């Protein structure tokens, strides 16, 4: 489990944050998912997919239980601690990307985060979301086209 955290911890956090939009809820979701992982009697066939699915479910649970407890992260899944040294162009792109992502449907947004930022393959996303690979690919392509339109125009 520790190897899984070392390898995928940041990506799991990004995926959890994409759902909760609140850093502390995202961390709680990861903690909960790992606690569930510790209680497993058998190692799942695809532990990576299992952990991403478990974190997603825990994030949805956290959001349902504690929706109004804290403020939303302004920069969505992006680093808000870059400080004054961050290039203006980079800062602008960050805000545009965050705004554009939040204008997408939940499925499109989550698929883009999972594929582009968490480096999951479409097959892995399909396994995690329990949808067909065609549906997942379609969410991604549609979402990306919308984002391109929003960011570049």
């Amino acid at each position, binding site marked *: 489990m*520790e190897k899984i*955290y070392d390898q995928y911890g940041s990506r799991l956090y990004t995926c959890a*944050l994409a759902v909760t939009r609140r850093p502390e809820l995202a*961390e709680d979701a990861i903690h909960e998912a790992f606690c569930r992982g510790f209680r497993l009697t058998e190692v799942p066939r695809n532990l990576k997919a299992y952990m991403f699915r478990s974190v997603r479910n825990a994030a949805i649970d956290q959001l349902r239980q504690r929706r109004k407890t804290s403020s939303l992260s302004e920069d969505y899944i992006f*680093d*808000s601690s870059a400080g004054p040294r961050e290039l203006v162009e980079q800062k602008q*792109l*960050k805000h545009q990307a965050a705004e554009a992502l939040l204008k997408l449907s939940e499925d499109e947004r989550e698929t883009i985060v999972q594929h582009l930022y968490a480096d999951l393959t479409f097959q892995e996303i399909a396994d995690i979301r329990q949808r067909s690979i065609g549906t997942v690919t379609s969410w991604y392509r549609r979402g990306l086209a919308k*984002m391109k339109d929003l960011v570049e125009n």
Partner: protein
Amino acid sequence: MDDFEARLKSVPLAKPSADMKRIIFGTEPGLSRLIGVFRRRIPLGWAAAFALATGIAGISGSQMWGGGAAAPLQPVVHVQIIKSPSDRNLFDFTVPAKDFMPGELTVNVQAPKEI
């Protein structure tokens, strides 16, 4: 990955707090492994056998070292002050009395029959 995807991917992502791993896996690297051992479920038969063996070992140990007899209870005397010449607790011997206190002291003493 096209140019637009590459541009989006270049934006740095938020990271979990530094404490996150410590919270999940414990403070020491070895601790998580130890916790992992205890978190693993063991078959019911093994658990029952372990409980039985522990019980038998406990009973035989107590017989071997003469631990079978219960330790005698210390008798307790209850003293209730009914009438006292002072507000001070006259049975508090942790503080030395400054002077002799004249007056009448009425107490009710209850002692177990064994005394």
